[in-house]
């Protein structure tokens, strides 16, 4: 079973790697690049919001910080266009991560609803700062990124970006997987289920949450930097884009929060759809309506997200096969797994809960 899974994943990886070599159509590869970027961003977002259950809706901040960091570094250090520029991407992520420390610390002092709103407020602050700190950000005129070398023209242009985006995605996935299987990740999931209970069991909830927050900002920042370079220029509404912000939440949610495959599935389904809308719905208003309706449909029809729903169906199917197995001795004590169906449970209900 496990070998099958590994083989499947390797085959998938191979397909993704070969994809742009086979499908050279520029539109297709552009959509693919965006999908990879979003998948990486959502995976990063999921490391915090999916695992801890704290919905961060201002993560576009770190995306924007990464974008501006990228532009400014390239500008100040006179980095030319080309492959070298990609080396700045992790640095952009690092800058975003550093920003996340104070912002995260302040935001995490609050809980649930206030937290969500603080993250949104942070987003708007940064957008304003991008407009107002003209000395640094060049205000609404924006900044431009190094031009790619002339031989990166036509269909080739997308390829380097594709592979770098893929690398970022794989790194994010690896990190997410590692966290999920570590004690740290277990602590995060416990926080999601019952934060105070986790605290009472010795989990250092404050530092855990902040670390997850910073790690997720790192990845989102990298995506911001990479996207900036891909786009060639940035300006405040591009870098601090409310739409992007909510899109990653929607993708994470569609795919399934707190899962590994969820973010990728969510991005793979929604990003091409989004691009399709952009291309074929030229009337701006129509695009928004279509996207809004899509949002509503996803939320109302698939409240749990794809991966958990599939998993549940799978478990149900397996459970119905196992029902035939016998459960002798422990049932009498009421401790075996048969308890939910045998006598002791009925007795429990009769006694009720003393208060």
């Amino acid at each position, binding site marked *: 079973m496990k070998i099958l899974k590994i083989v499947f994943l390797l085959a998938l990886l191979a397909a993704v790697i070969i994809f742009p070599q086979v499908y050279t159509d520029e539109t297709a590869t552009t959509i693919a690049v965006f999908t990879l970027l979003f998948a990486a961003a959502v995976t990063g977002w999921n490391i915090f919001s999916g695992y801890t259950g704290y919905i961060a809706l201002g993560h576009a901040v770190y995306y924007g910080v990464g974008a501006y960091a990228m532009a400014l570094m390239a500008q100040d250090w006179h980095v030319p266009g080309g492959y070298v520029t990609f080396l700045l991407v992790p640095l952009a992520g690092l800058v975003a991560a550093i920003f996340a420390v104070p912002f995260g610390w302040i935001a995490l002092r609050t809980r649930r609803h*206030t937290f969500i709103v603080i993250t949104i407020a942070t987003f708007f*602050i940064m957008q304003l700062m991008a407009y107002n700190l003209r000395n640094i950000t060049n205000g609404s005129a924006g900044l431009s990124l190094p031009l790619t070398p002339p031989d990166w023209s036509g269909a080739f242009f997308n390829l380097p970006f594709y592979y770098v985006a893929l690398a970022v995605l794989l790194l994010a996935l690896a990190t997410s997987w590692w966290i999920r299987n570590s004690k740290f990740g277990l602590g995060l999931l416990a926080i999601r289920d019952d934060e105070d209970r986790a605290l009472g069991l010795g989990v250092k909830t404050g530092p855990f949450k902040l670390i997850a927050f910073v790690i997720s900002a790192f990845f989102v920042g990298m995506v911001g930097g990479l996207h900036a370079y891909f786009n060639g220029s940035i300006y405040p509404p591009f870098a601090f884009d409310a739409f992007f912000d909510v899109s990653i939440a*929607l993708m994470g949610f569609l795919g399934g929060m707190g899962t590994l495959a969820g973010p990728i599935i969510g991005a793979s389904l929604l990003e091409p759809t989004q691009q399709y809308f952009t291309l074929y719905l030229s009337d*701006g*208003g129509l695009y928004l309506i279509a996207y809004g309706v899509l949002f509503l449909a996803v939320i109302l029809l698939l409240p749990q997200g794809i991966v958990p729903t599939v998993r549940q169906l799978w478990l149900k199917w397996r459970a119905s096969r196992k029902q035939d197995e016998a459960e002798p001795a422990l049932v009498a004590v009421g401790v075996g797994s048969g308890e939910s169906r045998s006598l002791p449970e009925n007795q429990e209900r009769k006694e009720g809960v003393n208060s």
Partner: protein
Amino acid sequence: MVQLIFEAVITGILTGGVYALMASGLTLIFGVMEIINIGHGALVILGAYLSFILQEKFHIDLFLGLLITMPLMFLLGLFIEWAFIRPLKRDRTMLSILVTFAIALIIEGTLGLQNTFGTDYVKLHAWYVDSSNASFQIGGFYLAYIYVFAFLLSAVLLAGLYFLLYRTEFGYSLRASMQNRTAAQLIGIDVERISALTFAIGVALAAAGGMAFGATTSFNPDSHYDLISRLLVIIILGGMGSLRGALIASVVMLVIEDVTAVVWSPVWATTVFFFLLIVILLVRPQGLFGQLEGRKQ
């Protein structure tokens, strides 16, 4: 300079009243339903556009037009709650954010279609808005009629809201639901009906706020982002769910913003708005009048 500051304070108070009207709906909805209506800004803008149509096409006065827009939006609120929010069972808070954002997008998109209003900025017009003499003259400075009227409108509606909340049985049920939803249900309060009505009232208030907003500021479908961000800051500052907090926070924020615009620069005025939030939250995470979300035992 002192004169300017004084003017700024007055304008701040008056505009604060308008924002209080908009924020009150938002905080009320949160208090009763525990959902954050990210679409509130869009609903305000919708209200503004409705007033716009009534005034441009049918030449109905802005204030009189409220007699049409408010009930209309009330019904819309009932529909939205029933269709999109009530079905949410698990994870209501997060899902409601996404849902209300989707609704905001749909509203923005519908208003922005080339066949409706497009993306041009518009403003509401009336005799008391437009003419250059449309202001009270007090001391050495001018107080635009519309600001005063808008403030009065807010005051009247908010007074009405208070009356509703504190002197009627409905209000009693509503406040009970806010304090403890389960307990309220146990004493026979139909919490679902209260939620629906609260949401509808919130939206109706947004309609009124929209008119006041649209008469004092030019707007287009995109304006809801800016608006909702400010409203959110206001309700967090005031304490989410606290009506009193929303009122005070609105006025305080707007006064500070207007004064900063005069004393420092208009550019930084808006940023100050948000920074203030962070500062206050460092000291008091629950806002001015909110409840500290304590440890669950």
